[in-house]
């Protein structure tokens, strides 16, 4: 996925001279995860900016650039550090279009690595998509693999509104996937059905999409149950139509996410299904999530991050209801 994201950045910067990259270590070093590798060499230090170490000014200065008409792609080195710029994101990124009644809009992307499972310390393993998904005016995007990461990042850069773009660290160097040379985009706000099925709907995103698909394989092999798997791709605005249409057919759903359970994105998805597919529901919608603890430390995180066994168990309970 690192190479795919890098390709998207290269191609979008070639395509549009207004696209800039700004963040800590994004220039000469190419980013701590190498997502911005070689951009500095190709486009120079005016367009690929090694900024001082200050999240609020990285986002705040990007707001200023976007107000001027540029399209900054800024990087927060880890999503756990974004609370130092959360005020800029909530107070300004999300609001400038409304505050200025359309006189200004902010075509900017805030990239952040997130998620656990990479044996990392506190503030390097969390999932915080719910904070951004809750904010009107923002879009919240989470790719699940190389090809959709590239297409979604290109779409996010071209989008006229601010996009918070989460990249799961466990996917950076996960399974290889062909990515076409020709630029491609995917529409924001649209989920994908990545596995068709009639018995139960699994909803996931980021690294959990793979877990959900593997759970579906297990259930097909061992229980002769066909699960439909929805890869959300965009958390906000939420593609309620795809979710409701699927559950209207299957009557059962399990939501999988790494973030803590309470008030997490899963709660909004359950509410959506209750609103839109109430008469079709055959069982309560289950959630397989992180526990409601601040962090677990990587020596214990295997017990916290949803895995295939937990998802399979939740599906079996839902099917047996």
């Amino acid at each position, binding site marked *: 996925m690192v190479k795919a994201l890098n390709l998207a950045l290269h191609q979008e910067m070639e395509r549009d001279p207004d696209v800039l990259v700004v963040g800590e270590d994004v220039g000469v070093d190419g980013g701590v995860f190498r997502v911005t590798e070689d951009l500095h060499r190709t486009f120079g230090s005016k367009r690929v900016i090694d900024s001082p170490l*200050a999240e*609020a*000014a990285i986002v705040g200065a990007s707001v200023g650039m976007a107000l001027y008409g540029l399209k900054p792609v800024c990087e927060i080195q880890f999503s756990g550090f974004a609370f130092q710029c959360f*005020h800029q994101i909530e107070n300004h990124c999300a609001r400038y279009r409304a505050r200025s009644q359309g*006189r200004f809009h902010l075509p900017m992307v805030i990239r952040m690595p997130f998620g656990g499972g990479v044996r990392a310390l506190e503030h390097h393993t969390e999932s915080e998509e719910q904070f951004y998904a809750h904010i009107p005016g923002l879009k919240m995007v989470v790719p699940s693999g190389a090809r959709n990461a590239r297409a979604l990042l290109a779409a996010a850069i071209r989008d006229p509104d601010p996009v918070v773009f989460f990249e799961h660290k466990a996917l950076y160097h996960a399974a290889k996937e062909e990515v076409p040379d020709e630029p491609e985009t995917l529409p924001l706000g649209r989920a994908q059905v990545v596995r068709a099925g009639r018995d139960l709907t699994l909803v996931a995103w980021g690294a959990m999409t793979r877990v959900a698909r593997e759970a579906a394989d297990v259930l097909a092999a061992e229980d002769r149950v066909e699960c439909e798997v929805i890869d959300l791709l965009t958390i906000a605005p939420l593609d309620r139509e795809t979710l409701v249409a699927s559950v209207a057919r299957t009557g059962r759903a399990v939501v999988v996410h790494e973030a803590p359970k309470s008030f997490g994105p899963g709660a909004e998805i359950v509410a959506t299904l209750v609103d839109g597919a109430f008469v079709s529901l055959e069982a309560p919608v289950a959630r397989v999530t992180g526990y409601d603890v601040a962090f677990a430390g990587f020596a214990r995180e295997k017990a916290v991050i949803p895995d295939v066994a937990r998802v399979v168990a939740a599906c079996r309970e839902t099917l047996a209801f």
Partner: protein
Amino acid sequence: MPRTVLEPRFQVEYLSILDSDGRLDAALEPALAPAQLQELHRAMVLGRRLDERMLRLQRQGRIGTFAPIKGQEASQLGAAFTLRRTDWMVPSFRETAAMVWRGWPIERILLFFAGYLEGGQPAPDQRDLPVTIPVATQLPHAVGLAYAAQYRGDDVVVMAFFGDGATSEGDFHEAANFAGVWHVPVVFVCQNNQWAISVPLKKQTHSRTLAQKALAYGMPGVQVDGNDVLAVYAVAQEAVDRARAGDGPTLIECVTYRLGVHTTADDPTKYRSPEEVAAWEKKDPLTRFAAYLKKKGLLEDGLEAAVDAEIAAAVARFEAVGPADPLTIFDHVYAELPPDLKAQREALAERLHQGAPEPHTPGQPSPPMRGQRQPRR
């Protein structure tokens, strides 16, 4: 291994041209044409009279809470006067006089403080950001605007306003640091009015000046008598010229005083003495500038009446604005309304169609405030 001095001793300049009695240091007098001096004076008088009018509008419940500028006319107008139309102004929330000078229609400012979203919309060709309320958070935006202007090769200077309290915020320091490192054409104008609501400057910082904070970020910092419009103008012009020439940012500390309340929800008698206020009233920026203009024979007859008429006309236009249409809250959330928001909009439209709730019209008393009993419907 001896102890060595790494950083040379620094100096912070303080500039005053026109003292509180209107005495002029002729050697420092800026070269402003008579018409410019009159324009500047008119803007200051307008700022003061508008402030007074807004206080009455607020007391009558016709606008909501706002932050009066009384006493700070010279600080903000002396600085904003140096900008071109093509430059950018980034305000905080106490720059009403400078905003009017920059071309914000008075009625739009009144709409803003009457709770209308329309009040935050700059004209299409206007290079001004709307009011920013969270303290100091607008300063990184100024740096980004300036970076973008430099990137595009545009001849643009960005001027950002903030108060003494803002210099304690992280965003001030981050913005100043970025501006220094990126060497961008920004002028930071701190209106040090001595009070951040109830907290005096001595509890805000242990620095002798606020201007010296610039030095750590590798840019010049200068302190100026903020009630002396000629001195503020002179210092700001130097900073703007330096920025325009590609010589980077400047921090200006205008030493001034908030003669009125922090906002209309504030009671300053709780935390400061009438003697202190009286002492600063003697340093009123308007009095001394009027004395200076009188000596030059430039004081206009009937200026206050003319300004009042302009304000009255704007208030009339403000009050003629129809009720706020609740449905427009959905117009500027995203470029395109997502399906869910479309449904929410339709639900509100349906509810409005059925006759609820009553729309709010400017010029009418505001809805009940906290603690007031709301009548049953």
